[in-house]
């Protein structure tokens, strides 16, 4: 496969836009066509964010049609349900199952969906659901950055066959030179997780 359409969902503040920016930059470095667009609306921290990314195809709009994404990536369990309709049957869904409860859920006024329900949806839609461990590995005493960990995990999926892991690593090094050790550790742990 030389093209990949990815649908990302997350909550503002999780750093998903950075995940997309790194992938896009690494794709561009490697000479692969890429275009992506975020729909963050008025979302600030805590709002729903989605981002559509199309890799390996010239002359396309960044907008992915329902049922056509090759891959979905989510950083929040509840938000994951929004990505289901965009994923094609047989597509891959990478989930870092973090939970950001909206206030109404914390107050017991609204329900929060269970991971099990997502598994059921995935099965029903013939989606390959890959669930990462939400307890992030520690670097020193602190948990690693979730978005870098996720980037590592994604490098072990179809994405890695289009954009080499080393291109992603180089891009991360260039963006955050001071955090190189911690970030490389996070990335490699993520890569080993899938």
């Amino acid at each position: 496969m030389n093209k990949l359409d990815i649908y990302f969902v997350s909550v503002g503040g999780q750093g998903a836009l950075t995940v997309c920016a790194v992938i896009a930059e690494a794709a561009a470095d490697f000479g692969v066509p890429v275009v992506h667009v975020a729909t963050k609306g008025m979302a600030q921290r805590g709002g729903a964010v989605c981002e559509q990314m199309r890799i390996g195809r010239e002359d396309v709009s960044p907008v992915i049609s329902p049922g056509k994404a090759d891959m979905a990536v989510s950083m929040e369990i509840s938000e994951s349900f929004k990505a289901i309709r965009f994923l094609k049957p047989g597509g891959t869904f990478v989930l870092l199952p973090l939970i950001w409860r909206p206030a109404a859920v914390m107050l017991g006024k609204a329900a929060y969906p269970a991971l099990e329900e997502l598994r059921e949806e995935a099965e029903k839609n013939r989606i390959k659901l890959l669930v990462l461990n939400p307890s992030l590995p520690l670097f020193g005493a602190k948990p690693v950055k979730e978005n870098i960990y996720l980037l590592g995990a994604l490098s072990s999926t179809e994405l890695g066959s289009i954009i080499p892991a080393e291109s992603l690593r180089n891009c991360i090094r260039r963006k955050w030179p001071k955090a190189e050790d911690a970030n490389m550790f996070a990335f490699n742990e993520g890569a080993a997780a899938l």
Partner: protein
Amino acid sequence: MMVSGNEAIAYGALHAGVKLVSGYPGTPSSEVIGCLMNMELEGTHVEWSVNEKVAVETAAAAGWAGHRALCTMKMSGLNVAYDALIGFAYSGTTGGLVIYVTDDPGATTGMCEQDSRGFALMSDMVMLEPDSVKQSYEMIQTAFEISESIGSPVFVRSVTNVAQAHAPLEIEKRAMPSSKTVLIRDIQRFTKAGSVIATNQHKRLIASLEKASAIIEQKGLNILKLGEKDGLGIVSVGSLNKIAEEAVELANENGCCFEPGSISTLRLACTIPYAHSEMDRIIGHCSAVIVLEELEPYVEREIIVRAFRANKNIRVIGKLDGTYPRSGEYNAAVAAVGLFAYSNVPVPEHFVTGDPLPAQKCAARPITCCAGCPHRGTYLSIKQAIKEEGFKPEDVLVTGDVGCTILGMNPPFHILWTETAMGSSIPTAAGYKLSGLETPVIATIGDSTFFHAGIPPLINAVQHEVDMTVIIMDNGWTAMTGMQVNPGTEQANEGKQHRRIDIYNVLEGLDIENIYVTDPYDTGGMTKTLREALNQKGVKVVLARRECAIQAARRGARHSYAAINKDLCTKCKRCISMTGCPAIAVADGMVTIDRELCNGCSICFNACPFKAVERKLL
């Protein structure tokens, strides 16, 4: 380099030697000036203007002075600017004048889903519509060239999925703007007084659009490819040029059979001026035409008119026959619906939207204020003051306005009733009062919105002696659109070519008799102030002052944070239900406050009946 469509506009304008760039922030257009503001640009003036009308007038003057000038805004801003813009279109320009406007089919940024192409039609102005980041870069330069060639301002119209898209782009060096400023006195061009002057200018404008048609044709901006004779044609415009091919692929995967190259295509670089010669050719060649355009059927109508003129009986598949909606953005699946219609193939179930059921399981996330947002204190104080004055919430109209200040419409506040246009909060509240409403009315407006369009309605309310309370929520920044400066921003926070105007002084100048200054973090004090204001006659203004928490934190102005005293906390969760602060969460049955997010605003201190929230110094 990865850049957004908006940044591509900025770089393209620099490569074209732009001398002056003005605009007012508005998603999805803000990053053009946002990007330029971060650069040192000797010889080019870049500004956030007080509103779009002033922005256009400033840029147009630079055009009259012989320079290249760019003015940026979102579609709502064009409504504000248009009064001036139509006048400038009549007068024409000497240097290239480009108006960059972004539309938002699907209204993801929460404003009217208006199609700004209507303004181009109404004012006989060229409106180029880039289909991508790369074309944004190229077209902004073409727009300057066309503007100078025809002597009229030119629009570049983008949409969210182009303006906000990111793609790799080769950026060329900036061209230095000319240092020669020309001064021409010509009342035939630069005034409107008298029918002769105005009608001559109108005729010149119409002729200039015809001239632009010829240039666009000669440049080959609209791309026509003829396929099978008497077959299908697809006419698309702007961003939809990028989905037509994919729509055919999707249709073929689902029961249609279009041979490669059989479909004639016309990829339009602009709706206005209409590509009459290309339209005539595709109409003459095909038996049916699908028109792909978001929002209004401008191209479609023109194709029908051209077919009628040519006496050609052709099937036009678009919005007017009910195939496509007039609301929402198109993707390839939406576009494919026309291909199914042409092929007489049923549209598969859930083809356009996907199965909507899974997403319904998702927990709703109504947008709310950031941790430490001063507006939170204003909303809680309004609520409390209304209660203490003996009114029910449903008795007191509290109008809202555009920007972060509108967040009080959502839970847990439920305090604001209306949002219409920039500045509308004040006249809406006044209008109710003047129609005989006996209960008090309160208008709320942010600082930037006040400068933009809040001053004339306040003058109106003062002149007509309306009994109302206006709360100006002054956080010092144009925050919702990504922290731009406005006339009230502290000079120390801004710097170059910026003199701060204090809203308090403006209010005094407007002859407001009762002006109160209050700190929204002090909800007790603000409630008292509001009660006092509600009991006065005439127009009262409460200036609720506290810097935006995000900007204050960026400057390191954070000195404390809140923490829950576990011994005192009864887990009643009033801190969450009252404030909705994103820094407060329930984890493992305990209420906790995120130390990184909290800025110690103290609003939850007052919300807690058990004094279980304590201030900690950093």
